[in-house]
């Protein structure tokens, strides 16, 4: 007990009892104690002088915080759709066999804890897991055996990694087995870039000129929503206030996307420079990179990149050599919550709170981080901004389609021979992409992740761009033998769990949609159930507060449209009512406790 109190004190003092650092405090307590118990929660509350329910609210919101012990080695195995396709549950069995406990449990000696987690940004090398912050990819039963043996022998997670990925994954500060799998380089992101050049050019222009170039380029937000970046910067610049922030949304959580991970690994300078350019344009002296908890393994490396950029004069006082432009960047870590990819939820989280989206207005451009005007942009948007400054807005606008200029990074995974990163020009068709990634036999492609749409074969001529198939970059190829309803179910489970719980339609509606889907999958559905599902999808999409709820029914909604036959094959045609009631299951427990044999037929 005394020890717990001391640990909390140390962690709290490390952050000067600043409530905005609540996530950091909790993360440190969790790391030291292996859990954040009720006692630790009230200790944190007491020492930080906040209510214990506020602390508990934060602890229970994020996936990587836990009130219960997670094990000295906490294994978080990804069970999102593509991982399942690649054999995640076989790997899970191997872990259970070797570790001697089930998923959701901790081994009896407290050493190994097995947990499932949602997508961890490794879809091109699944099944993958995070163990004590270290990434393990392309798992096999043999690998699992060796990993568990090493854990049992007490090796640090980092030392269990024996093979390393390509490129900078091999660098001293990352030393990870993660692979970049860059399959196609384009003119914007993966063309040669000389660090420092973009900011130097930007600061030779006026902020208005920078914004003008962004507007000319017609760059739209690369997270998927597609709001014009130049306009966002302009609004934030126009917003009254001395203090402003530029925030990089490094929380790519949409299952199937991993492009930002590769940007962080290979071209972080270009991204940070883009942030500095944004800071210069809007009049901010501080930038934040909000990095998803799953990418903790990149933090030290990115900190090092920042410090080198400071040494080079790209960041810090008179950044980029511009007198009076003092600009620096900090990294804030997430802790496992998909909804934090929504910009206002990200801001809440960066302020040390539950990642619940805010009501709008006010928009972040008016009142964002710490109540100050803030522009939140995607990782890829910042990289594109650097290139736009170097090459000019017009150069950029020559690529792509009328509504979607430039190139887009796609994260391709699933049933194809060449999964990985593709920088394509906007307007590329699904068919072309399938040929490039060697996924020609696909029966469906999930474009834009679960919140996007499931496209069937007849529509593979559709183009990837905001005016046709918008995507933040996630492309999941679904092969001939896959059960699409299983994929839909996996996605709906994901949304049900990742809903922040704030608004009724998303919190309740997704539970109900999931139940209804299961009813149909179990063969208890009727035509009326399909109609109900359609109606409920519309309600959740229409009435939810943020983008999560407004898109969460899409797995069902788009497959009901594009793959109706799959549903119709499952329902009992012509019946107006099918009960899900199962007498044998319903009386099982009571008969067992009374010590009698269930007599389902006779009664």
């Amino acid at each position, binding site marked *: 007990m005394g020890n717990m109190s001391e640990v909390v004190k140390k962690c709290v003092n490390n952050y000067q009892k600043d409530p905005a650092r609540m996530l950091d405090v909790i993360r440190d307590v969790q790391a030291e104690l292996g859990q954040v118990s009720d006692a630790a929660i009230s200790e944190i509350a007491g020492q930080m002088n906040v209510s214990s329910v506020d602390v508990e609210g934060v602890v229970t919101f994020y996936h990587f915080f836990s009130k219960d012990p997670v094990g000295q080695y906490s294994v978080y195995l990804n069970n999102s759709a593509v991982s399942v396709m690649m054999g995640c549950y076989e790997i899970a069995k191997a872990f259970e066999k070797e570790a001697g406990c089930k998923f959701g449990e901790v081994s009896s000696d407290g050493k190994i804890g097995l947990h499932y987690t949602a997508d961890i940004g490794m879809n091109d090398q699944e099944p993958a897991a995070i163990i004590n912050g270290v990434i393990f990819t392309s798992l096999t039963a043999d690998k699992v055996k060796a990993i568990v043996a090493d854990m049992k022998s007490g090796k640090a997670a980092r030392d269990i990694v024996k093979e390393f990925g390509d490129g900078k994954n091999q660098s001293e500060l990352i030393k990870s087995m993660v692979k970049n799998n860059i399959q196609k380089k384009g003119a914007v992101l993966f063309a040669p870039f000389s660090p420092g050049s973009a900011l130097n050019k930007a600061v030779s222009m006026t902020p208005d000129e920078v914004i003008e170039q962004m507007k000319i380029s017609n760059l739209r937000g690369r997270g998927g929503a597609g709001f014009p970046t130049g306009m966002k910067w302009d609004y934030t610049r126009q917003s009254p206030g001395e203090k402003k922030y530029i925030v990089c949304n490094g929380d790519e959580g949409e299952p199937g996307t991993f492009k930002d991970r590769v940007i962080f690994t290979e071209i972080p300078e270009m991204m940070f420079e883009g942030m500095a350019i944004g800071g210069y344009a809007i009049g901010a002296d501080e930038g934040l990179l909000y990095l998803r908890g799953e990418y903790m393994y990149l933090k030290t490396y990115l900190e090092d990149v920042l410090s080198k950029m400071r040494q080079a004069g790209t960041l810090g006082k008179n950044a980029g050599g511009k007198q009076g432009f003092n600009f620096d960047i900090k990294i804030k870590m997430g802790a496992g919550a998909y909804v934090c990819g929504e910009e206002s939820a990200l801001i809440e989280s960066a302020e040390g709170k539950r990642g619940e989206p805010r009501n709008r207005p006010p928009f972040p451009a008016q009142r964002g981080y710490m109540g100050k005007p803030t522009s939140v942009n995607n990782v890829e948007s910042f990289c594109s901004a650097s290139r736009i400054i170097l090459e000019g807005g017009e150069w950029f606008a020559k690529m792509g389609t009328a509504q979607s200029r430039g190139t887009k990074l796609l994260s391709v995974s699933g049933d194809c021979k060449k999964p990985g990163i593709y920088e394509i020009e906007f307007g590329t068709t699904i068919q072309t992409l399938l040929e490039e990634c060697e996924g020609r036999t696909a029966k469906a492609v999930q474009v834009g992740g679960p919140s996007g749409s499931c496209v069937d074969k007849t529509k593979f001529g559709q183009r990837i761009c905001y005016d046709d198939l918008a995507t933040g970059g996630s492309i999941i190829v679904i092969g001939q033998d896959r059960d699409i309803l299983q994929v839909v179910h996996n996605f709906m489970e994901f949304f049900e769990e990742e809903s922040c719980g704030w608004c009724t339609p998303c919190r309740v509606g997704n539970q109900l949609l999931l139940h209804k889907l299961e009813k149909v999958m179990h063969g208890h559905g009727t035509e009326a159930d399909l109609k109900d599902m359609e109606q409920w999808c519309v309600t959740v999409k229409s009435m939810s507060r943020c983008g999560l709820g407004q898109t969460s029914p899409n797995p069902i909604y788009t497959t009901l449209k594009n793959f109706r036959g799959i549903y119709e094959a499952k329902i009992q045609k012509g019946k107006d009512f099918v009960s899900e*009631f199962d007498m044998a299951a*319903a009386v099982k427990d*009571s*008969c067992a406790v009374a010590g009698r044999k269930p007599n389902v037929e006779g009664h």
Partner: protein
Amino acid sequence: MSKPVVATTSLAGCFGCHMSLLDIDDRILQLIDLVEFHKSPVDDIKTFSKMCDIGIIEGGCCNSENVHVLQDFRKNCKILISLGECAIMGGLPAMRNGIPVKECLEEGYLDGPTVDENKKGARIIPNDEELPMILDKVYPCHEIVKVDYFIPGCPPRADLIWEALVALVTGNELKIPYEVLKFD
């Protein structure tokens, strides 16, 4: 044309809904003119001997017998009505739905404060084969069979029952005054 035939039953209910049906006072005489009662506690007819037009169900399903009676009603009635909160959503008996059935039975028969202290050791959870089997939770009727109409209340107001039955039998539109639609 012969009068519509009505059957009623109480499953996991308290008979309060039936009491409320009787609470229509002297309109019961008009009701008798309008309909004929078949299987019902009202006239003590115990088995179905013909197809009924309307089946009125009070109470939800807490055991296997409830389920069979309900299924029997569905088979023998053209229209089924869930009468009252218990039939509609389980009602008071469903307050056990958040508690594992094992704990409920142990509290009721082995450990609870009303269990006879002097008969320690002799206490059992009833297990006679003749007894209905307890379900894991109390089910609303419409999760077991198709239910056509719902009349809420605990009990439903007599006026609501009356208006609903008359509307159903005469085919007129049911008008529900604000005061009679209540869940308590």
